[in-house]
């Protein structure tokens, strides 16, 4: 068993980062900041949060297999598609 995956300190650290990224996203939403660069930044925050959840909360970090990649692919491909859709909508 990989105890290191989910021992307390890393997971609390991840929690704090997730909250911070969320607040940042919300602040951007509250402000007048718009435009493709901002939108993509917000999306990146989302992808990062997803990656953190996947690696640390779901316990996928360190897995050598396609299961970890499945979640990463799930973040990258739709993320890429969404980015593309936003770029061409400008």
């Amino acid at each position: 068993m990989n105890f290191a995956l989910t021992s307390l300190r890393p997971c609390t650290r991840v929690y704090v980062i997730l909250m911070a990224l969320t607040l940042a996203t919300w602040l951007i939403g509250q402000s007048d900041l718009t435009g493709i660069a901002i939108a993509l930044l917000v999306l990146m925050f989302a992808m990062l949060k997803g990656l953190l959840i996947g690696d640390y909360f779901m316990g996928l970090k360190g897995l050598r297999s396609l299961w970890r990649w499945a979640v990463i692919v799930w973040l990258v491909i739709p993320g890429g598609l969404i980015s593309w859709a936003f770029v061409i909508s400008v």
Partner: protein
Amino acid sequence: MHDHRTYPPGDLAIWIFILAELLVFAIFFAAYAFTRVGHVELFNTYQQTLDTNAALANTLALITSSYFVMRAVAAIREDNIKHCVRWLIAAIVMGLLFLLIKSAEYAQHYSHGINLRTNIFYMFYLSLTFFHFMHVIMGMVILASVAFMARRGKYSAADHTGVHTGASYWHMVDMVWLILFPLVYVMR
């Protein structure tokens, strides 16, 4: 049995299920983004009628609930059944909070006569959040059954696959929302 370097935590069957669910949501997200291309003004306009404060609260609630689930897993790892159950209940309470806030949002929309047929943005917003809502409920049911079985002593430090299984599903529900929130509420 399971090679822990290869397989994710929890029952493999739930992971296939998780991937399938992620696939549906991914397609829905992509559909939203690409439909938006043809209706940018409309999407931007109506997006601003959404309650980002409620969404923030919801996001924080879900992330916190996922954290609580993590703590529950850590607890059972140390054979601490009591704490495991407590953390799970805390997670469920957070989930309930999510449902309440979201329901309040829906009530608001409904009172303004907004429904699936109002316009294409609202159709997506309502559909996406509704499907997610249903998954939050399902996740809570799963967590509740895990808590129930933990209370009856079904899990231990040596064998707690069921807890991992339920936890993985809940993290998926959280992860989906983490994409949904910025995509539908913020990005423009």
